[in-house]
């Protein structure tokens, strides 16, 4: 596939990895923000191609992982109503709420359906006038244009039986929150390429300056990630702290204007609670007043029980890059993808699930994979 395969080319990847090894003289800690990037890194075994001194920590760029428990509980409660068809992206289904996930709600009779796009949910509403179709709108800025369009179309066509449960989160405030934490060890960021494809990367300049950290807008294929690392390391080695764009084939500095306009028309910035991190001001989106009637939160008054928190899951520390999944005492034992204690183990983008699936049971030196392949 064009514009995909070239960035998975063995020789190019090995060459880039070599370039990084040659230019690294000191240990550096980098954070890649997006869950999709974490997925690629762990799936292709990228970490082991990097020199020992380069540590990649995984950020909270998994919207599934950071959706507040209360929001899952709300979705579950809405899904259990007989008149409702709750539509969601696949990865949200297994995330545990206080007591149930959407999958559980489905097992208990709720009409929960996986859709590829919010427009599919809207179409469902058009062809099922007697049901209330609710779309669970979770995601970063990348998905906001799609969700904005669905609501905008619903408004134009005056579709009465469609609504959206909004749990959008924004990346730059989360990066700032991580950087301003006293325990922060992150020295450079690989920013989320597709978020920037929509929003541009203007917002990163003040952050880069204020905290003196290099920020490299990076793509998702192995070659992109390695090049992003290479550019970040080059900055770190020379003491620079600038914003650079590795993913220039997809990202422009000003981003996608029509998309930004549609988002601004339908949504407004609000505060949001990030599961595992806490409340970050001005870090979420909600529907504007003019579109509030499409807000499932106000349309459905649901009873949510007391939101239970457990002390064993350290998702918060993992999401901020302060702990690696295998440093959690429950990792791989009490907490597995089949018996998850928290969202990062459930979501396919979550760091914990990625580490579990792809075999990173211990620090790279003696990971389950290294010992297995040492023999040949």
């Amino acid at each position: 596939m064009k514009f995909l395969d070239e960035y998975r080319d063995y020789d190019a990847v090995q060459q880039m990895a070599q370039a990084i090894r040659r230019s690294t003289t000191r240990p550096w800690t980098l954070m890649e923000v997006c869950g999709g990037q974490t997925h690629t890194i762990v799936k292709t075994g990228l970490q082991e191609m990097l020199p020992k001194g380069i540590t990649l920590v995984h950020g909270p760029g998994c919207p599934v992982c950071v959706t507040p428990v209360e929001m899952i509980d709300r979705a579950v409660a809405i899904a259990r109503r007989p008149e409702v068809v709750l539509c969601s992206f696949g990865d949200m289904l297994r995330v545990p709420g206080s007591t149930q996930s959407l999958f559980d709600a489905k097992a208990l009779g709720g009409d929960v359906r996986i859709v590829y796009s919010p427009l599919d949910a809207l179409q469902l509403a058009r062809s099922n006038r007697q049901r209330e179709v609710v779309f669970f709108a979770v995601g970063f800025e990348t998905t906001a244009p799609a969700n904005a369009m669905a609501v905008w179309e619903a408004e134009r066509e005056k579709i009465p039986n469609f609504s959206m449960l909004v749990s959008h989160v924004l990346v730059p405030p989360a990066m700032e929150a991580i950087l301003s934490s006293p325990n922060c060890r992150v020295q450079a960021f690989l920013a989320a390429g597709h978020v920037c494809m929509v929003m541009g990367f203007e917002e990163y300049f003040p952050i880069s300056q204020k905290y003196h950290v290099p920020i490299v807008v990076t793509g998702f294929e192995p070659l992109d990630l390695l090049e992003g690392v290479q550019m970040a390391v080059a900055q770190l080695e020379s003491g620079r702290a600038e914003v650079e764009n590795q993913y220039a084939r997809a990202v422009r500095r000003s981003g996608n204007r029509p998309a930004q306009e549609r988002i601004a028309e339908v949504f407004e910035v609000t505060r949001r609670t990030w599961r595992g991190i806490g409340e970050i001001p001005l870090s979420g989106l909600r529907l504007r007043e003019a579109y509030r009637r499409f807000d499932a939160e106000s349309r459905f008054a649901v009873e949510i029980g007391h939101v239970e928190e457990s002390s064993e899951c350290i998702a918060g520390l993992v999401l901020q890059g302060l702990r690696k999944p295998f440093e959690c005492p429950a990792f791989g034992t009490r907490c597995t993808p089949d018996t998850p204690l928290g969202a990062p183990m459930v979501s396919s983008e979550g760091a914990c699930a990625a580490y579990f699936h792809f075999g990173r049971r211990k620090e790279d030196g003696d990971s389950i994979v290294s010992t297995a392949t040492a023999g040949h």
Partner: protein
Amino acid sequence: MCLAVPGKIVSIVQEENLGLRRGKVDFGGIRKDVCLDYTPEARMGDYVLVHVGFALTVVDEQEAQRVFEALRQLDQLEELKEGAT
């Protein structure tokens, strides 16, 4: 976040109703209906990145080559260095 896949626009349709722009995008042999409203500059034959049914950017083919140029130069540099030692 987030999975956006590159595909080639093979047809474009301007809808009557709300004036929305839709198209068929080809992803290595499979085709899907995609909303092209956010890429008004996209033309037939362009490659776009598609996320949950929406084209969000037109791929800059020149920029796409840049990294391979850089690698070629790196390669030549290394050969020079090795030649010099």
